[in-house]
């Protein structure tokens, strides 16, 4: 299991995606699966970067495990920002027309639907989100 710690800021997004992609590539992850995981990781990390410590600054740790047969990917995010469970928020109404459509919450919805499972816990002063996807 590999782990990196970065500033919880949008500037770190590329570093986070490269780290996760590196782990998946090394494990021989199929491209489509990598793209889906990237999409979920981007949405979760952007959420942390924007809200976890706002308006202060802080760090986030990302760990990634990929491999096995059947193929499986686990990505964990940990930050010490304010306790916040993004999964608590109700899903946005995706049936509204363009004019009435709200854009908030779409990122988390994407992450939920693209992954097989997302779990949140607050433990030892940390927000911990764990994403799982089976190939």
């Amino acid at each position, binding site marked *: 299991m590999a782990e990196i710690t970065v500033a919880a800021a949008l500037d770190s997004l590329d570093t986070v995606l490269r780290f996760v992609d590196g782990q998946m590539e090394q494990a021989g992850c199929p491209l489509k699966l990598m793209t889906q995981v*990237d*999409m979920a990781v981007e949405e979760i990390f952007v959420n942390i970067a924007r809200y976890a410590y706002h308006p202060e600054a802080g760090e986030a740790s990302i760990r990634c495990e990929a491999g096995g047969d059947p193929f499986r990917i686990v990505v964990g995010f940990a930050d010490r920002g304010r306790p916040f469970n993004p999964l608590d928020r109700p899903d946005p109404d*995706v049936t509204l027309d363009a004019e009435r*459509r709200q*854009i908030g919450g*779409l990122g988390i919805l994407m992450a939920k639907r693209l992954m097989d499972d997302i779990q949140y816990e607050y433990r030892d002063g940390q927000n911990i989100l764990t994403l799982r996807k089976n190939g």
Partner: protein
Amino acid sequence: MEEIAMTITKTAENGTLRIALEGRLDTNTAPQLETELKTSLSGISELELDFSGLEYISSAGLRVLLAAQKTMSRQGKMTIRNVNETIMEVFEITGFVEILTIV
């Protein structure tokens, strides 16, 4: 992730604007498309977005597409072509398949 950036290629004629996107429409690149559309849609009655070179979309990209769709619904129409399987999955998850005209 081979390519972080996005390339925008524009062709305009007789009120039709064609925009081909290549790469990733994500948190980093969505503002680039937003700026491009803000300055390009005046007098346009038809906007065609070609996604054949687009590999990836995030919610930031969806936000820009929604704004473009609203603008074009008022002044003409917008179509999106050549959407890949993964991006189509995102359009389905988010209900964007109902909002956008994907051909």
